[in-house]
């Protein structure tokens, strides 16, 4: 019987052929926790009798969600993580090194064909690498760190097939927003997604990460991009589905006419063509996050803002996804372009994405953000509204002070 990518990867890890619906205990290749989930993970690890993490080379802690620490309480939690990492001989990624998902990929903690478990809901991002990656909470992660294993129900898979090529000025973010709108925020709960078809084949690794990242916004356990066209700077063996694999559902879209998309408050699946919202006044523009804080995202914003100034009523925050992204954006001139246009650069990391610090919106304010979530209160103030769009849309909107279709600046 044919297998999906997820069924193949899990089968490889449990040493027998398994199919959707089976309950398995699988070994994992690596795991990580951030400063939101890490402290509770450490506590649970100790409580369950954990002495040594299963493989210090493959387990990591990342300080990214509230970095540098905004208060003494969080400073103490960060210290707890540093102490634990030292004790265990595992790597701790310090403040400013970057967002957990970005640094896991850059530092090759996860590779094609792996099973990777992260104590963060956007762990499916590694599906860009043709890996099976799922998010869990702290106690689950503690158990994985201790045993090197996880229990899983082999998921059913939804196939999302996109034919056609994206138009110039339309990005992977527009494509995934469109798909989240179609599948809905609970449309893939407990299930895996396979993204396949021409539209994905020419995408860069960064764009594939944007796609896989938002599988979480459809409730999926994992979201894997078909490896066709995937280019990495090391050799790898890719895992492809069998032609007779069993899908619980298949979506087919021709995306060659897709327009830039916007997700309106207050759910990521409230997605519409940008024309529905053009002209909406904005106060605050944000580019960053594990969804869209990579070099190509900053580059496209710089292309739009080059030699111009953002609108006087708008403030703009840039949080590069990692230090390495920041260094690249410094050397290619993107960073000075953005700053000269009026943007404010903050520490590489999650920044204001999760409402902890570094740019909480005021009551009644409107944010255009390149992030992945716009739930009420997400950025720290339940009385503000968040629109999601591509980095190009965020940049064009910052320029005009209102939601703006970026195409005219890119063609």
């Amino acid at each position, binding site marked *: 019987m044919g297998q999906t990518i997820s069924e193949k990867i899990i089968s490889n890890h449990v040493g027998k052929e398994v199919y959707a619906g089976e309950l398995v205990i699988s070994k994992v290749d690596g795991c990580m926790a951030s400063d939101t989930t890490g402290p*509770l993970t450490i506590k649970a690890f100790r409580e369950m009798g954990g002495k040594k993490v299963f493989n210090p080379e493959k387990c990591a802690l990342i300080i990214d969600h509230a970095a540098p620490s905004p208060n003494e309480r969080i400073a103490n*939690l960060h210290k707890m993580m540093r102490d634990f990492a030292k004790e265990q001989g595992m790597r701790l990624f310090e403040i400013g090194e970057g967002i957990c998902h970005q640094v896991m990929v850059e530092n090759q903690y996860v590779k094609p064909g792996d099973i990777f478990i992260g104590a963060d809901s956007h762990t499916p991002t590694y599906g860009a690498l043709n890996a099976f990656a799922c998010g869990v*909470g*702290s*106690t689950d992660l503690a158990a994985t760190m201790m*045993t090197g*294993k996880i229990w899983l129900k082999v998921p059913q898979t939804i196939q999302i097939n996109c034919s056609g090529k994206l138009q110039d000025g339309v990005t992977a973010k527009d494509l995934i927003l469109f798909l989240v709108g179609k599948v809905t925020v609970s449309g893939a709960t407990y299930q895996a997604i396979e993204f396949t078809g021409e539209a994905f084949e020419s995408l860069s690794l960064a764009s594939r990460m944007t796609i896989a990242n938002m599988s979480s916004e459809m409730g999926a356990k994992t979201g894997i991009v078909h490896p066709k066209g995937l280019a990495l700077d090391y050799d790898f063996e890719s895992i492809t589905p069998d032609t007779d694999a069993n899908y619980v559902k298949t979506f087919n879209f021709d995306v060659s006419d897709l327009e830039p998309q916007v997700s309106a408050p207050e759910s990521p699946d409230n997605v519409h063509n940008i024309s529905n919202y053009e002209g909406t006044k904005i106060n605050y523009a944000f580019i960053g996050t594990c969804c869209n804080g990579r070099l190509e995202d900053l580059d496209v914003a710089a292309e739009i803002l080059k030699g111009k100034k953002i609108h006087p009523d708008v403030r703009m925050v840039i949080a590069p996804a990692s230090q390495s992204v920041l260094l690249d954006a410094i050397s290619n001139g993107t960073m000075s372009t953005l700053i000269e246009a009026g943007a404010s650069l903050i520490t590489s990391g999650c920044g204001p994405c*999760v409402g902890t610090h570094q740019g909480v919106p005021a009551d009644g304010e409107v944010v255009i953000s390149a992030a992945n979530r716009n739930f*009420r209160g997400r950025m720290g103030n339940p009385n503000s509204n968040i629109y999601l769009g591509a980095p190009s849309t965020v940049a064009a909107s910052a320029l005009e002070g209102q939601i703006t279709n970026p195409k005219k600046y890119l063609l």
Partner: protein
Amino acid sequence: MAVQTNIRAKAHVYGDHIDTDRIIPGKYTKTLDLSTLANHVLEDLDPKFNKEVKPGDILVAGINFGCGSSREQAPLALKQSGVSVVIAKDFARIFFRNAINIGLPVLEIADHSIQKNALLDIDLKTGIVKDLTANITYTATKLPDIMIDILAEGGLVNYLTKNGTYTL
């Protein structure tokens, strides 16, 4: 540690797609202090909840309860506030696992029509939920065996302390 398997209490009822930011906003999650979590539970959804909830009360919701982040602080905040069990039409998967892992029972009842303040009688062993106010009986979806074992121990910490590793 055995968990209480018979519960009779009042239902606090909310709607669909209650995300983890609404269960406990991100700005309060960076703590190991459970009372801080309980003090802010559901505050952006219903600021009165935290004052009205009584130990043992039942939280009832619609579809996709707990969607969003992986923060285990969400079920911890609910448990600490006194909630004894969460019933929803269905759950987001990480929340579902987290709740079981910390020993907060969750029941999936796809077609419930439980109303605010209903008095419920729950048998966690059988998954039978009696709505005594509306006089309707529901049967919750059966949990995977491993989840039943984890819940029976009061959570994953106890389960692994006892067993050392996972067993099927």
